[in-house]
């Protein structure tokens, strides 16, 4: 669950990135966060992952109040999230299996848990035959699937995907979005940041649009124009 209550963010250089954002995302929802470049989408993601703090207002993520979260609590909060990036951010020198083990190891998972969970997740994203492949041997779509598997492997309550199809062609983008929809149907809350209008319009989901740091639309489905 995400709650943003009258959130403002002003950076040290004086840029006002967010101006009084109110947003509530319930468990199990699928939400597109859309808006042009510089609208404040990335700032919202950074607030939700506790990379930065709000200048004003309250930010609550999966029960953690990020306004007064202690430094030692941040890793525990992040374990409730799975994060997917536009540029995949895979470790090139590790295999697919290695990348997933790496993510599980960081949260203290045992070898037995890894042996059980990793094949399941790879099967879910359709990469069960690629466990031993290295990222640079795979296509962009496959690499993004690995990134999704990595986000899923620790069984998070919510996935935040920051432009997950930004580096993919339309066909692969559709595949990835369909996969995210399938994961959402299994109960994981999904927040997808994108500026791909066609993709957003193709899926009938809740769309939250922001522009110049202000929320300008929050509605279920419907046609969205960037």
């Amino acid at each position, binding site marked *: 669950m995400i709650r943003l209550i009258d959130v403002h963010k002003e950076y040290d250089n004086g840029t006002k990135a967010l101006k009084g954002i109110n947003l509530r995302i319930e468990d199990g929802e699928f939400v597109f966060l859309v808006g042009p470049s510089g609208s404040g989408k990335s700032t919202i993601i950074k607030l939700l992952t506790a*990379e930065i703090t709000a200048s004003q207002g309250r930010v609550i993520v999966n029960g953690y109040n990020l306004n007064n979260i202690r430094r030692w609590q941040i890793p525990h909060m992040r374990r409730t999230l799975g994060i997917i990036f536009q540029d995949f951010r895979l470790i090139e020198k590790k295999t697919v299996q290695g990348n997933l083990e790496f993510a599980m190891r*960081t*949260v203290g998972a045992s070898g037995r848990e890894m042996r059980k969970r990793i094949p399941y997740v790879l099967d879910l994203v359709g990469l069960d035959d690629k466990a031993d492949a290295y990222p640079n041997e795979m296509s962009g779509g496959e690499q993004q699937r690995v990134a999704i598997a990595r986000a899923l492997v*620790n069984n998070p309550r919510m996935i935040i995907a920051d432009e997950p199809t930004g580096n993919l062609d339309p066909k692969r983008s559709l595949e990835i979005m369909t996969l995210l929809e399938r994961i959402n149907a299994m109960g994981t809350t999904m927040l997808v940041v994108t500026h791909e209008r066609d993709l957003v319009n193709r899926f009938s989901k809740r769309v939250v649009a922001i522009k110049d740091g202000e929320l300008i639309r929050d509605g279920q489905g419907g046609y969205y124009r960037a």
Partner: protein
Amino acid sequence: MRRLNLGYFIKEGFSSIFSHGLMSFAAVCMIVACLIIMGSFSLLAVNVDEMLSQLEEENEFLAYIDEDYTDDQIRALMEQVRQIDNVDPNGVTFISREQAKRDYLKGHESDGLYVNMPDEVLRDRLSIHVKDLERFTETVEQVKALPGVANYRAENKVAEGFVSVRNAVTALAMILVGILAAVSLFIIANTIRLATFARREEIAIMKMCGATDGFVRWPFIVEGLILGVMGATVAFFLQWGVYTAVCGALTEGGATTLFTLMDFKLMWKRVLAVFVLSGSVIGGLGSGFAIRKFLQV
């Protein structure tokens, strides 16, 4: 630290040394260079200290005994001197006036001036060794105050000179080793920071997956410790070689007739222990400092 994690940290520490071979090599070289500079200076200080200790051993003063004192009174006086806490109890020796005369005339036996010199010219005396040279003057004053001590002869200036030289050498050694250690730490931290910079993306991924600072930091610290121990081992053998070569050159040049250099074989265990400890601390702390900036994600 869970057992599982400890194994993981050690494995990661080793594997990252080999996967960033050039940076690891640079870090080891820096540690070797810093330890050899520190080690050379420390060995110089140890040798100076040893030389001063040898000179101190020979340091003593004389207390002249009242001429009217009987043998029993002299024995009692010696006991009183031994009771003074800075006096070495085994270092209090009675020298009779006859013995003193014999010592005085050594080398002058054929000199006509001293031929009929009467025994009474010199007095009975006590030769007294002090334990702590820094309290030399204070001890002389204590002995002087005892009844039966008619006079004394003490080279206070020499004793004070030894103390000053020793204190200066110790202070200089501590300051220089401290500065060198700080510089080493700074250089190692920056070398490891360069190695870490290439892995900042990896660290960011770990942090986004929910890794704690400790989980991210430990493999780097283990890596630093391993590099430190490797550097210390190489530095130890090089130091051994350099020290032996310098000793050899000084012996050939005849300098060892003036002073004795300590044999490396007598102190190799201490040197190795200090090197390994210093290398580990420099490597571990350097890594800890280097990684700090990258944890701010």
